[in-house]
């Protein structure tokens, strides 16, 4: 029984709870047990079993009185440690937030609890969401529940992707029915692809950023990781909405995303951008992408060849804009108000020693790059030029929407790799996000759908990108893509 509870989708679990097949308490307990037995994955930075059972019992009591808060009522989920959760350790994977226990709740998690979701714990992540492999976490790497069946990575622990690596691993390993992450340049979609789960980044402004520990404020956006597109639609519906506490959150009604999943994409125009065909891209990625085209075409969509000329500049633009914003956002870690403090001889010495001890190498690199590109004499050449190129990238997409409704690309240029690889060369690590960063720069919604396995038996994802606030069109297409791909493989964990 308990094993079966772990294999459900959110949609199935919700129906079973409504039918009284099992209680929210039993569902939560099964997942808490799974969390405990999967500690070897290092997917969680904090476990909250007591809170989970209290929340589950409340859901059961509501149902006993004939009430329900909706499709997430009683559904156990995991929360990336970037979200502030009241009374629960929130570290952003950083040593500098040692012991930080927020006295407030992020808007997105508050929305989820108001919808009846049950918190299992906080998930491991790259420090301050800066990474693509979950290897920069102060709490050690999270391990991908998938293992290679052949090739160079056989027998090695693989990365889950990043930065929302713990959330993706938890959903893939059947520890949580769903999880939330954040995506700045691909941090939901790329781990989704590496772990064989759906990763959804909504339009910038769809979800409130209030209470989400800031990395790059013009890019950060919360979203769900789930085992199906429909589950992602359900979670996004609960997470999204206007929040007066975030001036960039959009005051627009939240659609019922699940009703958009009609299975009908006849006449939909699917753009395939020439510039995403990169030199050195593995043949199996190219093949899967072509397969994705064929699937959508057979479902009645029209394939349109498009051009996004500034694609190759998106990643270097990101590595100016994101570090610049990070250098500013991370100025708040001063050893005075929260977290780690290393006492120095004077105020400046205290700042410098605290930040030297509290930040890991990748965070230091990015804060320093950001400081440099914003510094006097370099601002125009780097930061201002990057902001102009960002306009160019957004305009590329704007032109594309004249001729297509949704864009299809691969999610990542490879399958998951072994822990320890690409560690010596920051730029090699950055290239993981080459296909996800352009949509981030333009603030567009995008989703990764597990679509096949590599020759070595590891999951690969396809990405769909939609126009701003066209999540419904994008999700409808993703649902059809998911059905056609019929991805049923499970990790060996």
């Amino acid at each position, binding site marked *: 029984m308990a094993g079966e509870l772990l294999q459900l989708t959110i949609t199935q679990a919700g129906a079973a709870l409504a039918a009284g097949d099992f209680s929210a308490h039993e569902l939560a307990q099964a997942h808490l047990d799974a969390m405990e037995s999967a500690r070897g994955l290092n997917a969680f930075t904090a476990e909250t079993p007591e809170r989970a059972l209290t929340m589950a019992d409340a859901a059961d009591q509501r149902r006993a009185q004939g009430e329900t808060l909706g499709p997430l009522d009683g559904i156990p989920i995991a929360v990336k440690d970037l979200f502030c959760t009241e009374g629960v350790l929130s570290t952003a994977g950083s040593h500098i937030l040692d012991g930080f226990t927020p006295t407030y709740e992020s808007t997105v998690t508050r929305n989820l609890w108001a919808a009846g979701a049950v918190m299992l714990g906080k998930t491991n992540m790259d420090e301050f969401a800066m990474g693509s492999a979950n290897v920069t976490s102060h709490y050690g790497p999270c391990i991908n529940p998938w293992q290679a069946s052949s090739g160079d990575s056989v027998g090695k622990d693989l990365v889950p992707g990043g930065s929302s690596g713990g959330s993706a691993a938890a959903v893939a390993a059947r520890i949580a029915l769903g999880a939330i992450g954040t995506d700045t340049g691909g941090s939901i979609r790329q781990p989704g692809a590496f772990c064989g789960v759906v990763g959804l980044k909504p339009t910038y402004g769809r979800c409130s950023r209030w209470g989400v520990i800031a990395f790059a404020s013009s890019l950060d956006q919360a979203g769900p990781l789930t085992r199906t597109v429909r589950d992602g639609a359900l979670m996004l519906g609960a997470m999204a909405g206007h929040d007066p506490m975030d001036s960039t959150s959009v005051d627009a009604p939240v659609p019922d995303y699940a009703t958009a999943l009609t299975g009908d994409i006849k006449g939909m125009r699917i753009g395939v951008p020439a510039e995403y065909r990169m030199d050195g891209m593995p043949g199996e990625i190219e093949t899967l992408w072509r397969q994705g085209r064929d699937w959508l075409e057979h479902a009645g969509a029209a394939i349109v060849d498009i051009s996004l000329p500034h694609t190759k500049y998106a990643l270097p633009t990101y590595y100016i804009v994101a570090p610049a914003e990070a250098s500013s956002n991370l100025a708040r870690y001063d050893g005075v108000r929260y977290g780690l403090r290393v006492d120095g001889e004077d105020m400046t010495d205290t700042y410098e020693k605290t930040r030297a001890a509290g930040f890991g190498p990748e965070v230091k690199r990015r804060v320093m790059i950001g400081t440099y590109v914003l510094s006097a004499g370099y601002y125009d050449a780097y930061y201002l030029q990057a902001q102009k190129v960002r*306009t160019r990238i957004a305009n590329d997409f704007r032109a594309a929407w004249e001729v297509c409704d949704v864009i299809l690309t691969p999610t990542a240029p490879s399958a998951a790799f072994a822990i320890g690889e690409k560690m010596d060369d920051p730029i090699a690590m950055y290239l993981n996000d080459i296909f996800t960063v352009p949509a981030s720069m333009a603030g567009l919604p995008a989703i990764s759908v597990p679509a096949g396995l590599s020759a070595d038996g590891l999951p690969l994802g396809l990405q769909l990108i939609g126009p701003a606030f066209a999540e419904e069109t994008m999700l409808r297409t993703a649902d059809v893509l998911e059905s056609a791909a019929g991805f049923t493989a499970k990790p060996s964990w």
Partner: protein
Amino acid sequence: MALDTDTVRRIARLARIYIPEEDLEPLAGELSNIIGWVEQLAEVDTDGVEPMTSVVEITPEQREDVVNDGGYRDRVLANAPDTADGFFTVPKVIE
């Protein structure tokens, strides 16, 4: 542009991150690689292009200018590494 150790020392100072002297040179190499790579943006024609300041086309809303928050000093101080008499503490800054 290659960053020399003096530049790295200056940036580290601006960023308030202590970098030991022996780490300056390897860090200069790492940062130079990244800066060298992002410099490809210089080749993009951006004449007449406005820099992006907002990724979504919305006008930030106005709200009433009223006090609607505050009055919870203990919660604000709850996570401080050190406090005294309801204040944050810092090392002595005036001799």
